[in-house]
C-alpha cells in the first residue's frame, strides 16, 4: 500500500496537530513565523505549503497537542492543504 504524505513548504510535512486534544488557545499561532496555522472557534489545521517544519509550535503548545512526526504526516490525517 502506498501512503501519501502531506507536503510542507519543502518536502514532507512533519508537524502534526491532534485536533481532538486541542484547546484552541492560539499559543502556536502566536509563535508561528510563517502564519501557517489556521485556527477557528473549535477547528485547527496547518497550512502545509507555508509550514517550514520549524517546530516552534510543538515546543510552545502548553498541552502536548502538536507533535513532531519524523516520518511525515499522512494525507489521511488532519485537514488543510
Amino acid at each position, binding site marked *: 500500500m502506498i501512503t501519501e504524505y502531506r507536503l510542507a513548504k519543502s518536502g514532507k510535512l512533519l508537524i502534526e496537530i491532534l485536533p481532538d486534544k486541542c484547546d484552541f488557545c*492560539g499559543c502556536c*499561532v502566536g509563535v508561528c513565523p510563517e502564519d501557517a496555522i489556521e485556527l477557528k472557534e473549535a477547528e485547527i489545521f496547518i497550512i502545509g505549503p507555508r509550514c517550514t517544519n520549524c517546530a516552534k509550535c510543538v515546543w510552545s*503548545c*502548553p498541552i502536548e497537542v502538536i507533535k513532531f512526526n519524523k516520518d511525515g504526516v499522512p494525507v489521511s490525517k488532519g485537514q488543510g492543504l
Partner: protein
Amino acid sequence: MINKEYDIVVVGAGPAGSMAARFAAEQGVSVLILEKDRDVGYPVRCGEAVSYAGVAEFIAPDERWINAHIKKFALISPDETEAVIEFDEEGLILERRIFDYELAKTASKAGAEILTRAYVNGLLYDDGKVSGVKFEHRGESKEVKAKIVIAADGVESRVGRWAGLKTHVDFRDMECCVQVTASGVNPDTDTCYFYFGKEYAPSGYLWVFPKGENIANVGLGVGGAIGKKSSALSFLNSFMEKKYPKASVLTSIAGGVPCSPTLDKISGPGIMLVGDAARQVNPLSGGGIASGMIGGKIAGTIAGESIRHKKPDHIFSYDKAWNDRLGKRHEIFNKIKNGIYGFTDEKFNSIAHSFNKVPKEKRALGNLFTTALIHNPSLLIDVAKVFLIK
C-alpha cells in the same frame, strides 16, 4: 443586520477590543466589533487577576464579576519558604466571562455594534491601505469596509501580520500556560500565591488565585524554550498531584501569554493593534487585562479623532501615545523579567530567607526588590528606570 461599511471595524471582543470600540463610538463614529467565538467572554483564557485601579478606570467595580478581593501576595520559593507582602492597594480576581460581557455592553451602549461567530480571515486593501475585512459568518463569506481596522485578535495576532506588521512572538518569549479552576483548594481568600523555581515553573511562575471559599485558579506559565523538554501541562499535573490530590477540576484551559515588550510598530495605513495582539502585556507579571484596556482606550480615542477630523495619518500618533503611557515601562519590566527568570533555585531561596528577616511591619514589595537586587546588582539600573519613567 450589519451595514456594508463602518468608520471602524474592531476584530475581537476582549477587553482591549471592547474599549477601543467604546472610546471610538463615544465620539459618534460608526463602529462594528467582529468576534470569532459564539459568546463574548467565553472561553476564558486568563488567570483573572487585575489591580482594582486598573479596572476602575474603565468600569465601576461590581461584585457580580468580582470573585475575590486581594490584600496580600505570598511569594513561595523552591524550598517552600513563604514571603508574604501586604498590599497597599487592592487586587481583584475577576469572573472574566461576566466581566468581558459587561465591558462589551459598555461599547454597545456607546453605539458600537457587535457580531459574534464572525471569523475574520483576510483584509481588504485600497491603494496599499487596509480598507476593511473579509470574514465568515455562519458558513457564509462576507466583507465589510472600514476606514480603520483595529486588530484585537489576541495572542494569535494574525490580522496585524496580514497588514504587514511583524507580530509573531519569539517562542522563548511566549509564556505557555495551563490553568485549572478547582474546588477543594483552600487558599486564603485575600491572598494571591506565586511559586517560583524549576520544579514549579521554570522561566515563569505558578499561581494560585482564590476565586472564593474552597475554589481557586491554579495555573502556571513556562517559557517556550522549556517546552522542548516538558510541557506546561506536565508541570501542572505534578503540582496538583502533590499539593491538591483530592481537588475537583471544574474547568481546565490552555493559553499563551506574549511576555515581550510591545511590538515595534502597532499602527500602519488603516490598521491599529491593541491588547495581546499588540503584545501590550506586562512582561514581568504576564498581566494583560488593564494594559490591554489602556491600549484599547488610546487606540479607540485616536481612531475616533482621525475619522472626525478626516486625518488618516493621525492614527500613527498611537505608537508614541502608547509608549509614553505604558510601552516604555514594559521594556524595563521585560529586562527585570529576564533577570529574575535567570535566577537559580538557591537564589530564590536565599532571597525569601533574607526577606523574612526584615521586621514584619517593614515588609513590602520594595524590600523584596532590594533583597533581589543584592543578589543581582545589574537589575538595579533597570528597577531605577521603572521609577524614573512613571
